[in-house]
């Protein structure tokens, strides 16, 4: 009896061998290298911009010149437009994420739950969008936005990308797993097709919304090229565009540039720490096949 019992536990317990230790050291080193640039910029954000311009970005610890002064500049409207950019980014990110989520879920539901003519053709179109870089159609798209008189507005940024292929693809996959009997149950209860979506399906989609919401939100927050083209008025700039305007060879704005860059990452890092699972689900959505 006591000869047989300990064996399985011995087998299941991972053995800490030399290999394990070497692997641990290896990954510690790798993580150190990967996080080092971020550490360097955080450290630099506490030094005056003139110091950065004089010596270049380095990791020297200089308590005599380090302070929170750069961060104070971010919050002072007279010193910088940073808070305006931050607010604009927040607004656009929220609006775009919510709209894209709703539209993509709506469309993904149509693809997942119904059989109709041209369905396969239309779904191929979803995949085609994924395969063509947006920059190819950038010039005519800009002309179109000008023609529609939504240039220099939030709508000019949001509308062309409101039915994003990856979320549609993701929601279709997600909803395909639901039994279609749910629809019939709703119909028997007297709901319309759209009522079924709103009352029965939407509440079931919360986890999918979490994953895609974070994925879309991160993309909106970091979106650069298209907003750069659409927006013209300085007071409407988003964070990446505003920060980019500070990146001049003369370096006269490095205080705000460096502290502002760090401060722009913070909201995403906080979200990442809290909702890691959703981040990972959202990022790997594309690699999951049907």
């Amino acid at each position, binding site marked *: 009896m006591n000869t047989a019992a300990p064996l399985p536990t011995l087998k299941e317990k991972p053995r800490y061998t030399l290999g394990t230790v070497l692997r641990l050291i290896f990954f510690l080193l790798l993580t150190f290298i990967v996080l080092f640039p971020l550490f360097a910029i955080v450290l630099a954000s506490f030094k005056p911009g003139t110091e950065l311009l004089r010596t270049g970005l380095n990791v020297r610890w200089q308590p005599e010149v380090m302070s929170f002064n750069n961060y104070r500049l971010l919050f002072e409207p007279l010193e910088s437009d940073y808070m305006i950019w931050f607010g604009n980014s927040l607004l656009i990110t929220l609006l775009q994420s919510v709209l894209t989520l709703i539209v993509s879920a709506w469309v993904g539901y149509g693809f997942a739950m119904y059989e109709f003519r041209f369905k396969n053709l239309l779904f191929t179109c979803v995949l085609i969008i994924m395969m063509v870089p947006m920059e190819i159609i950038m010039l005519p798209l800009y002309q179109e936005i000008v023609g529609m008189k939504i240039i220099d507005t939030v709508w000019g940024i949001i509308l062309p990308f409101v039915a994003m292929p990856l979320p549609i693809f993701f929601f279709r996959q997600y909803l395909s797993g639901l039994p279609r009997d749910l629809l019939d149950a709703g119909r028997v209860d007297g709901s319309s097709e759209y009522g079924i*979506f709103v009352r029965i399906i939407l509440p079931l989609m919360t986890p999918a919304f979490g994953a895609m919401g974070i994925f879309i939100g991160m993309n909106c927050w970091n979106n650069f090229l298209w907003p750069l083209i659409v927006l013209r008025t300085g007071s409407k700039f988003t964070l990446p565009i505003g920060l980019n305007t500070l990146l001049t060879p003369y370096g006269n704005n490095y205080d705000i540039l460096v502290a502002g860059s760090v401060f722009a990452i913070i909201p995403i890092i906080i979200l990442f720490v809290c909702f890691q699972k959703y981040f990972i689900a959202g990022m790997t959505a594309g690699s999951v096949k049907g």
Partner: protein
Amino acid sequence: MGVAFLKKRQGFRAFFYSQKAAPYVFVMPFILVFVIFFVFPLISTVIMSFQSVLPGQVRFIGLENIKRLNDPEFFQAIKNNLIYTALTLALLIPFPMIFACMLNSKATIGRNFFRSALFVPILTSVVVAGTIFRLIFGELPGALANQIVGLFGMGPFRWRQMQGTVYMILVMLACWRWTGVNILYFLSGLQSIPEELYESASIDGASTIRKFRHITWPMLKPTTIYVLTISIYGGFAMFLESYMLYTNNRSPRGMGLTIIGYLYRQGWEQNNIGYGSAIGLCLLLIVMVINLVQLKFFGLFAKEDK
């Protein structure tokens, strides 16, 4: 008349709420966006490739724009993209795959922590990441990269002014941001491999390398193909990384110029919209060839229709 109108309206309402119309109502937003913001501009790009486009003065000039593509700057851009893509493929597929295999092993301590920590760089935007790398590879002797090579008695270098180091910075930036993501892809691929396969291989006395060769590698093939595809695509569409490295898309002697960067310069900065469109058309053809090759050999659609 009023009654007829009301009836007609009810008829429309009935149709709108019918089960037959519902799917089309659901996919309608996509159709609208697809036609207005994708098909239409795509056709415009093709048409404008054969036009000279100036405000109020649009005329067809035949193949002039296409002929202009025989342009050393454009070739430099294509060359840059090719080298960049080749280097990122060589680094961003094997290494993340190996790292993922190591992180997948239960004997690795703190694997969840490392997975998350290596993922952090992708949270930064290209603007912030580009700024960081631009400052690290600054020209001053005190800049981080110069300090590091200084430890080995080299430098200081003007990193952003030499072709070799320009590629190096761009590839390092790509590796920094994407290694963690590719690890995630491979990890999710690895987790779909049934444990029993390894167990039975162990019973047969297979070594770790043989297990990798005969189980992991073939089972990871779909993931590898996916990562390969998005990496090639990303390599040819690369623009913002080099845009951030130099002010106003201006790299010395086209060292950091990319295809899209050239499209941006011609179509945007110099207002040669026709020529810019021709460059776009050329990139479209490149991307289509890549996709077709991929479809032919790996049949992405065939698998998805199943």
